[in-house]
């Protein structure tokens, strides 16, 4: 069978994008080749000249880096998805807490730690830090943060009871049975969470633009919505 376009996508898109690719293939197109990894790793590969067709980043910053290197096909960059940030606790936890200005998260943590994706590096962590800062509680938790490698690892810390609370994407929390969503952060408390998509300049595959269009189409977006992503 003919190879489909090579799509480099943030690891958190794994389930939804795989489903979307299957749907696209079901329409008679060659199945896209999907490579999931951290956005940073994928962006670096593009910058190093990797012959890929599409790039789906978990944040704007790495897409910017690729754009700055002049490797995006002009006019193809758009925002594909949005997401929400939620506060989670182990499934058995009885904790009640609503993320709002000055909410008592520090007290709720007690001696425990707050699991986040690394706020210095990973997008989900940066959003979480922004939200907590906006709500005026960052100072209270800054010293109690457990920065994990990525959102999934942060969630694993909560799943395993190593941390009583964590902040992850709504999509992740929704998929796990071992955690409970304690509350959702107000959308205004952090910069909008956006997953940009773009066709790469190196792309030679005739389907690249078509697959991108499919993802942005109504049936495409419906798949992502089913996995908990919001429209941008």
């Amino acid at each position: 069978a003919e190879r489909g376009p090579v799509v480099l996508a943030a690891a958190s898109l794994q389930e939804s994008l795989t489903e979307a690719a299957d749907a696209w293939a079901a329409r008679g197109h060659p199945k896209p080749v999907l490579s999931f990894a951290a956005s940073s790793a994928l962006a670096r590969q593009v910058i190093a000249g990797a012959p890929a067709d599409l790039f789906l980043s978990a944040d704007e910053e790495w897409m910017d880096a690729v754009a700055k290197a002049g490797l995006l096909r002009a006019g193809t960059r758009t925002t594909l998805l949005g997401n929400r940030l939620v506060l989670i606790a182990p499934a058995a936890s009885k904790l009640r807490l609503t993320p709002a200005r000055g909410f008592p998260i520090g007290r709720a943590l007690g001696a425990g730690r707050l699991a986040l994706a690394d706020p210095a590096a990973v997008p989900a962590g940066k959003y979480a830090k922004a939200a907590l800062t906006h709500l005026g509680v960052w100072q209270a938790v800054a010293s109690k943060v457990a920065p994990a490698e990525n959102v999934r690892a942060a969630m694993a810390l909560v799943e395993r009871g190593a941390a009583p609370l964590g902040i992850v994407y709504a999509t992740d929390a929704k998929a796990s049975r071992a955690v409970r969503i304690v509350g959702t952060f107000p959308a205004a408390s952090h910069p909008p969470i956006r997953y940009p998509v773009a066709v790469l300049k190196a792309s030679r595959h005739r389907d690249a633009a078509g697959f991108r269009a499919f993802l942005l189409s109504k049936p495409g977006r419906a798949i992502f919505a089913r996995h908990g992503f919001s429209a941008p």
Partner: protein
Amino acid sequence: MLSAEEWGIVALSLKVGGIAVLATLPLAFALAWLLARRSFPGRVLLDGLVHLPLVLPPVVTGWLLLIAFGPFGPAGRWLESWFGVSLMFRWTGAALAAAIMALPLMVRAMRLSIEGIDRRLEGAARTLGAGRWHCFWTISLPLALPGVLAALVLGFARSIGEFGATITFVSNIPGETRTLPLAIYSALQVPGAEAMVTRLALLSVALSLGALVLSEWLVRRTHGGRRLRGD
């Protein structure tokens, strides 16, 4: 028992790991030999260089490989223009990453064995008419065999487990670079896929146990008879 996809992943892992280790073996042996037998200026530096992939986080090694062997990198450009070969997104790139990560382990194991060779035996072989090379093949190498086998086992196990450098260098392409650890990583990204993770992890374990059993059998075959007698 295994799905076609899982078979594919196992086959790819075996190919990548096997070729990485076998292709590295001669270089690793040469390095081990150099480090064990010769003293030259820069010896410690070479030793340090060999250990580098062990010391650096694998992601950094992958990144360095990407810089060097990516299509824009010097080595990558050279490979492309002279041989028309690109390692990007290819299993050959995964094998290169695995080989580099396995190198320090392989060199150390063989070096230990080479240092343990009784050099008087080499002298004896020379007086019997063996030139340097013949002596090497018939005496030194067989005497270093325990180290070579240990190197194969360690290197293969390390290759089978290699993740960080691979995903950073050649990404996570199904059928090309998605070896077992990358498949496990992918499964780990899906909440609730613990069963899948466990399954794949057990596959890794089975592969390396197989390699172990094979190596033990080889050791016994080649060494069984020449145990020292019980006095």
